Structure formats: C-alpha cells, structure tokens
C-alpha cells in the first residue's frame, strides 16, 4: 500500500471552500437517491426526523386512547365500553406515552440536535443509530397491532406481578407488553451509547465541558441515566417473560419468589425514567429562555450541577412508589427526606430561568410562551410531588386521581410543553421555514387552558377518594361534575393538538423562509443553513464561549483539514475538546435494517417458544457480522505516525 502524506488527499481549506467545497462534501455525505437512500441512510438528521415524526404519531395514538377513556369516564356508571377495553386502553396509553413517545422523542431531539449543537458532522455509530430507529418502530408497531387485534396488554404500564404473571394474565397480552419493553430498551440504550460517545468525543474544538450547551448536558446526563436504569427494566421484564414462558418463579410467592421484587426492579428504572424525560426538556427550556431573553442563562454552573444532582438522586428514591407495600416503617423518614431533596435542584433551575428572563429583555414569542406555561404548570406538579414525598400524605393520595393529576402536571407540564416550545423553536432549523405565529398562539392558549381544565379537577377527585384505573364509578360519590369537566378539558387539548399539527403541516409547505438564524440565537446549530446540509458544517467550527454566535458576530472561527472525499469526523479530548484524531464515519448501509429485522423475528417468536432465542441468534449474528465487516477494498488513508 502506498503511504501518502496527509496533505495529498483532498481536504477543505484555503484551496477548497465555498460552493466548490459544498458540492464536494454533498457528494461524499449524500445518500443514494430515493427509497434506497431512505432505507440505508446513516444521517443523524434524517434518522432524527423520522424518530420525531414516529414519536408524534405515537403521541397522537396515546392521546386518542386517553380521549376514549375520558369519554367513558364522562358520566358515572357509563357502559360505553367493556372493562376489558378500558383496561387495555389505559395500559396502552401509559405504555405508549412513556416508552414509545416520551423517552424516544427526547432521544430523537438529541439525535437531531446534539451533533449540530456541538459542531460535528454526524453522530457516533451512525449505523447503530439507524438500527435503533428500526427496533423502536418494530416494537411500537407490534404492540399497536396487538391492540388492534384485541390482544393488547391490560395489566397497566407498570404491570405489577402477580397480576401480570402466568396465573392471572394467561394468553399473550403481557408477553407482547414485555417484549415491547425489550424493543424500546435496545433502541434507547443504543441511542444512549451514541450520545455519550458523541458528546464526550466529538465536540467542536474549544467547546470545553464548561462551554457545552445545556441541552447537551441534559442529553449527556440522560444518556448515563438510560445506561444505568434501563438494564433494570430489561432484567425485570426478562424475568417476567421467563416466569410466564419457561416456568421460573421469580415473582411467585409460593415458590420462594417475591412479587415485590418486580416493583423494586421496575421502579429502579421507572423513577429515573421520569428524569430521563424531564432533563432534556430542561435543556429546551434553557435554550429557549436564553435565546428569547437576549441574555446568557443565569448561573450556568448551578444549572449543570442541578442536572447532575437530579440524575444522581433519581437512583435513590424509587421506593417512594412503594410506600403502601408495607416497607419497614423505620425507613419512612429517610424516604421522605431523600424524596424532598429531589426538589432542591428543580427549585434552583426554576429560579435561574425566571432570573434569566427578569434580567434579560424577554420577547414573548410562541416558544417562550411555552416556557412560561411550563413554569406555571410544572411548579404545581412539583409542589404536589413535595406533598407526596411525605409518607403519611402519600398513603392517602397514592393510586388516586391526585397522583394522576400530579404526574400529568409533571410530565405534560415538565416535558410536553417544553417539547412543543422546542418544536416551534427548532422547526425552522428542521425544515427551513417558520411556523405560523398566529396559529401557534391559538394552539398554545387552547392547550394551556385545556390542560388546566382537564387535569386540575383531578386533584380534588383524588382527595374525594376516586382511585385511578377504574373503568367506571358510582353516581352518588360527588365525582360526576369534575369528571365531566376533565373530559371537556381533554377535548380542548385534543383540538389544540390538531391546530398545532395543522400549523406544522401548513408551515412546512407555506411558512416564511427562515434563514440560518431566524431567532438570532447563540448556539452553533444556528451557524449552518436551515435545514442543514448532510455534512452539517463545511468547516469544523471553533468555540471560545458558551454563546458562540453572539460573541462572533462578524466571522466564525473554523478549522480545516478534514478529508472531503471520505466521511471523516474530528475527535477531540474529553474535557477541553482539544483536536485529537480524525476518525472515519460509517457509510450508508442496509445492514442495520437487516439486523433489526432478524432481531425482530427473534423477539417476536420468543413470545411463542424459548428456542427462538437459540435459533434466532444465528441470523442476528450473521447480520451483525455483515454490518461490521470492513468496507472493501480498504481505504487509501495512510497511517500518519
């Protein structure tokens, strides 16, 4: 092999810049045209968009199942649907919202945004990224097809044993649920691995940890939380499948097992999961607040430490989902104290966001309106969470509509509102066009007011004794009016989402053309055109502050010298982001899809026979070998010693 000098290969630089460079990079980083390109792409933006769109579809499905439930609950002793249908619906609603919407969409936003925010050309392990999407899609489709075939799971989104065990849930419903967990598990873990590697190794030169955008911090902490928490639900659901399929006894009290083992394992994941959803959302809030307040976010180090603190504490408080199970009474005060501690970082963040607005010059455009709605709503959820941290209070409100209200305030207020704001805020980056402001405001006010009407009454319903997950309720309990009100509110929210979606579709076709940085925002993602080219940046940007575009108004410092004839990334050092290695990035490939198909076959057939695990392993292994086999012939890149 000829040893070439590093200078002999075509690279960007003085000689190659401007349109010529763009054309050359587009050839190198572009996908094949048409469907084949769509299937084989490894571009984080295309995969991110399809992830986001799929997540939104699941949001709509979960929302429709909620509407259906609210119809049933609109009047007492309603016989509109059978209890079996209702139980499937709330299981599908919770499962879809948590596993198929909230976690994936936060990861999807990170897949799209993180490489742009840190100034790199693609995510690390792009084929894994493609694989992750196919797995996610397969899991979601499987469970919804099952629901349509009336074998949807019906044991609740946390499927407590022994109700979900072989004795009390015969049939395949719970198996389908548990396998869906495995699918989303694999998908989420893959993305977490990519994000950790991308964030720690691919940041633009000069983007030290202390200059990292807060959404990227959120994504990093979240990725670590996924890595440490998801194995727990993976293990729990595998043990459940084993109990159901091959006769193990993990959750069987009669054979030395313990039903509470499930709850410990599930909530060791389930509690961190709430923050896996919430922390990226705080990143959205920080970016929007900063951009529209015209001021760098107040107390950046406190914000970062709050994120990390939340992440750490999240792993210590899972038992607060289990207060009523008869835990040792001695521990009550410990659990209360630990759970209350979680609200300290949240209180600090809330202060910092409002302080940023107070000290800045806020422009209340639609994204910032969502931030205001977030604060107004999320704080209510946080404070009702403070109430439930107290064991005595929790013993009264646990598993009632008070809790239903609480977690919707936390999850919709804390994650969906910021997400809608973020969607509006980055829509011009995704599509090149602005979302319509007037429709945006109409949707905003409808969703904000509708949400309060739907969920605020539930606090009172809970205090008036209404338990959650009941498909009907008696007439004389005094719950009738509030339930009707909640149903009306939920339809307002649904209408608002319709307006939001119409706005998105309309703006996609007819919206005002955005330009690279329509909001005059400070982050690197706004330094490239909208939508960004396949290679993100013609030259690798260099960063010397937390708000690079505000501090470099006349010109952007960049580094040159990456190859343009092959896909190449820049790796930098972990802490200070010093340029270190030029690393190849994967080419488009259909192998991730084949691997995902093989894995899907394995997972689905293992619902029916344990031998599928053994036999199905071979096609999976074959697909993986094809995936990782080096491209042929070996590239011309010489070793530069």
């Amino acid at each position, binding site marked *: 092999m000829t040893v070439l000098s590093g200078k002999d290969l075509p690279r960007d630089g003085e000689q190659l810049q401007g349109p010529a460079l763009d054309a050359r990079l587009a050839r190198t980083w572009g996908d094949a045209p048409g469907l084949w390109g769509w299937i084989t792409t490894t571009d984080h933006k295309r995969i991110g968009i399809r992830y986001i769109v799929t997540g939104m579809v699941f949001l709509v499905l979960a929302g429709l199942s909620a509407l259906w439930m609210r119809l049933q609950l609109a009047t007492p002793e309603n016989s509109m649907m059978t209890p079996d249908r209702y139980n499937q619906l709330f299981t599908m609603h919770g499962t879809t919202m948590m596993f198929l919407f909230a976690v994936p969409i936060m990861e999807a936003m990170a897949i799209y945004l993180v490489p742009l925010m840190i100034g790199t050309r693609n995510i690390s392990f792009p084929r894994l990224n493609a694989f992750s999407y196919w797995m996610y899609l397969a899991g979601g489709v499987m469970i919804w097809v099952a629901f349509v075939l009336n074998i949807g799971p019906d044991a609740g989104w946390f499927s407590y044993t*022994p109700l979900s065990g072989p004795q009390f849930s015969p049939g395949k419903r719970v198996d389908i649920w548990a396998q869906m967990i495995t699918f989303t598990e694999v998908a989420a873990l893959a993305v977490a691995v990519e994000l950790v590697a991308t964030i720690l190794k691919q940041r633009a030169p000069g983007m030290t940890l202390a200059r990292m955008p807060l959404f990227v911090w959120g994504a990093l902490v979240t990725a670590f939380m996924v890595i440490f928490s998801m194995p727990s639900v993976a293990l729990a659901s595998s043990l459940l499948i084993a109990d159901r399929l091959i006769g193990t006894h993990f959750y069987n009290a009669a054979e030395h097992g313990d039903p509470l083992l499930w709850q410990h394992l599930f909530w060791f994941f389930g509690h961190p999961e709430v923050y896996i959803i919430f922390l990226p959302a705080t990143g959205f809030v920080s970016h929007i607040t900063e951009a529209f307040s015209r*001021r760098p976010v107040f*107390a950046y180090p406190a914000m970062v430490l709050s994120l990390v603190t939340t992440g750490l504490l999240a792993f210590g408080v899972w038992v607060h989902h289990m207060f009523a199970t008869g835990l040792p009474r001695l521990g009550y005060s410990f659990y209360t104290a630990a759970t209350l501690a979680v609200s300290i970082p949240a209180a600090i963040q809330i202060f910092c966001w409002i302080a940023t607005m107070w*000290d800045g010059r806020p422009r209340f455009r639609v994204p910032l309106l969502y931030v205001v709605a977030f604060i107004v709503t999320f704080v209510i959820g946080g404070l009702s969470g*403070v109430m439930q941290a107290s064991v005595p209070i929790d*013993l009264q409100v646990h598993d009632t509509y008070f809790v239903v209200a609480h977690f919707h305030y936390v999850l919709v207020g804390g994650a969906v509102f910021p997400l809608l704001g973020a969607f509006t805020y980055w829509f011009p980056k995704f599509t090149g066009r602005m979302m319509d402001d007037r429709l945006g405001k109409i949707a905003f006010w409808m969703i904000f007011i509708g949400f309060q009407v739907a969920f605020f009454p539930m606090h009172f319903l809970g205090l008036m004794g209404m338990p959650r997950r009941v498909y009907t*309720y008696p007439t004389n309990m005094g719950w009738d009016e509030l339930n009707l009100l909640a149903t009306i509110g939920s339809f307002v929210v649904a209408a608002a989402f319709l307006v939001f979606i119409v706005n998105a579709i309309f703006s996609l076709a007819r919206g005002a053309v955005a330009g690279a940085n329509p909001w005059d925002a400070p982050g690197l993602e706004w330094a490239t055109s909208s939508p960004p080219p396949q290679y993100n940046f013609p030259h690798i940007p260099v960063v010397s502050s937390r708000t690079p575009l505000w501090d470099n108004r006349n010109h952007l410092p960049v580094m040159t010298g990456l190859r343009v004839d092959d896909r190449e990334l820049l790796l930098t050092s972990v802490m200070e982001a010093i340029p270190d290695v030029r690393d190849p990035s994967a080419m488009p490939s259909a192998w991730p899809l084949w691997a995902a198909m093989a894995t899907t076959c394995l997972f689905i057939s293992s619902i029916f026979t344990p031998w599928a695990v053994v036999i199905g392993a071979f096609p999976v292994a074959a697909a993986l070998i094809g995936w990782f086999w080096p491209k042929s012939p070996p590239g011309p890149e010489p070793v530069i010693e």
Partner: protein
Amino acid sequence: AGIQSVSDDAGRESGLIWSLFVLFGIVTAIFYVAVIAFLIAAYWRRGGSNQDGLPDEGGVTRERSLRTAFFLWTGAVIGSLSLLALASYFTDRGLASVNPENKPMVGIDLVANQWWWDVRYHYDDPSQNIRTANEIHLPAGVPAMISLKSNDVIHSFWVPNLAGKQDLIPGRINDIVLMPRRIGHYRAQCAEYCGLQHAHMALDVIVESPADFQRWEAAQRQPAPAPATPLAQAGYAYVTSRECSTCHNIAGTNANGTVAPDLTHVAGRRTIAAGTLPMNRAGLYAWIADPQGAKPGNNMPTVGLNADELHAVAAYLETLK
C-alpha cells in the same frame, strides 16, 4: 366530607394526615405564589420591549443582586423542606403510636380476592369467630388491628375517612391499625389495580357505638334463620342443593363453599358484590339473574334460573339478615 374522602378526621390517622396535608398545602402555596410573582415581575420589568434588538451587552446588569436572591431562595427552599420533613416525621411518629395505652383491640383478618373482600373477626375463643364479606363493622373509640392478606394478586385496603392505604400482597401479611372516632358509614375501595373488575371492589365500613357493635357481633354469630314462607323454602332448597352451595357458605345449612362471599347474613349488608349493587330486592334480582351483566368478568357464573327459581332464591336471600 363524603363517605370516601381524604379530608376527614373520622379516624385518628386520617385526622393527623389531613392536618399535615393542610400544612403542606399552605407552605407549597406560598412558594407557588412566590414563583408566579417573580415570573410576573420578569414580564413587567422589560418584557416585550426591544422586540427585535440585538442581545443587549448591558443586559447582564443585576448579576449581584440576582446572586443574593439566588442564595436566599435556595436557603428558603432547603429551610422549608426541612420543616416539612420534620412535620412529616412527627406525624409519622404519631401514626405509629396508634394504641399507646395498649387497649384491647378488635382483630380482623381481611383477605382480598379478585374482586371481593373476605372478612374474618377473630377472638381468643375461636368459637366466637365471625366470617362475613364486603363489609366491616368497627366500634368507635376502640382500635382495630387488621391483618391484610391476598389470595391472588396485589390489592390495596383504603378507607380514606379513617386512614391511609396499605397493600395486600400474596405471600405476605401487612398490618394496619385503625382508630375510628366518629360513628358513620364510610366506603373503602381497592386502590391497587387488580384486574378486570378493579372498579367494583368496594368495602362498606360501618363505625358504630360499642353497644351497637356488640349487638352486631352477636347477630353475626347466629346461624342463618330458617326459611318461613313457601317461596323462601323453595329458594332455600335451591340454594342449598344446587350450584350456589359449592362456592358460598350459609352457616347452619349445607351450603358450605369457601371460595365466594359468605352469605349467612347477606341481606343485612348494605351492598351486593363488593359495592356493585345496592342491597334491596331489585339489586338481588339483577345480581342473581345476570351477575355478568352488572360486573362483567367476575367469578360468579350466570346460572340461568327460570323465573320461579329466581323469585324463590331472591326471597330466601332476603331473609338472611
């Protein structure tokens, strides 16, 4: 407060918890007002101005005063949380010492089933034991110790007017001690999703004066009265010889099944099928004729009685006071 309400002090526990809840409510409301006030201040201060201006370099003006406010805020949060934790601790200690004088207690074994409650009162003399279903009676002012067990899945025992909830878990026994203070009728409902008919798993709780309670105990210990009218006798014959008797128990007859609610004094109870229907003639007819209509999926099969049998069975059951 209603018959199934948290905001009540009919029990010593619920009273303590409600006071704690009110304290939490006040403190959290103060914090909420503070947050919203700050938000409004942020809007009024400069919001809306400088619509499309460039970032204002002088925007970072009040860093120092903000810092002071930041530390004050954090201190206030930590201080109040500590206060709340302490209050919670003392309430919990109060709840733990429910029977400080070691009074003799009413002892109940409560066994949850999909989807009904099996109730057994136990006494030092086992011949005095009482078995009933879906309804418990408690004397006011006397602590009651309830052992919670489950025959199938996890359920949760919750009488909000009296106390917080406690789960019934297969393979374990959880205890809860109640101290009812006010006479009245309260409603408990299973609070852990337990399958198809989780919505229809209520339990009537009747707190009465100790004298009334003793009368009730004595009545419960009596075997079922013999049927008096011919119609009731026909019903008796049907119930004790046909499908009913394999699952249900009626003391003093040869209906001695154990897997379904005890019917010895069923007509004296307030509801049928764990709160599904009211206990009256219409309710009895509806339930016996079509148990799967009122509570689909429950374990009582639709027997398919003809009209005569239905009249007879209902008439007999009505006599079981």
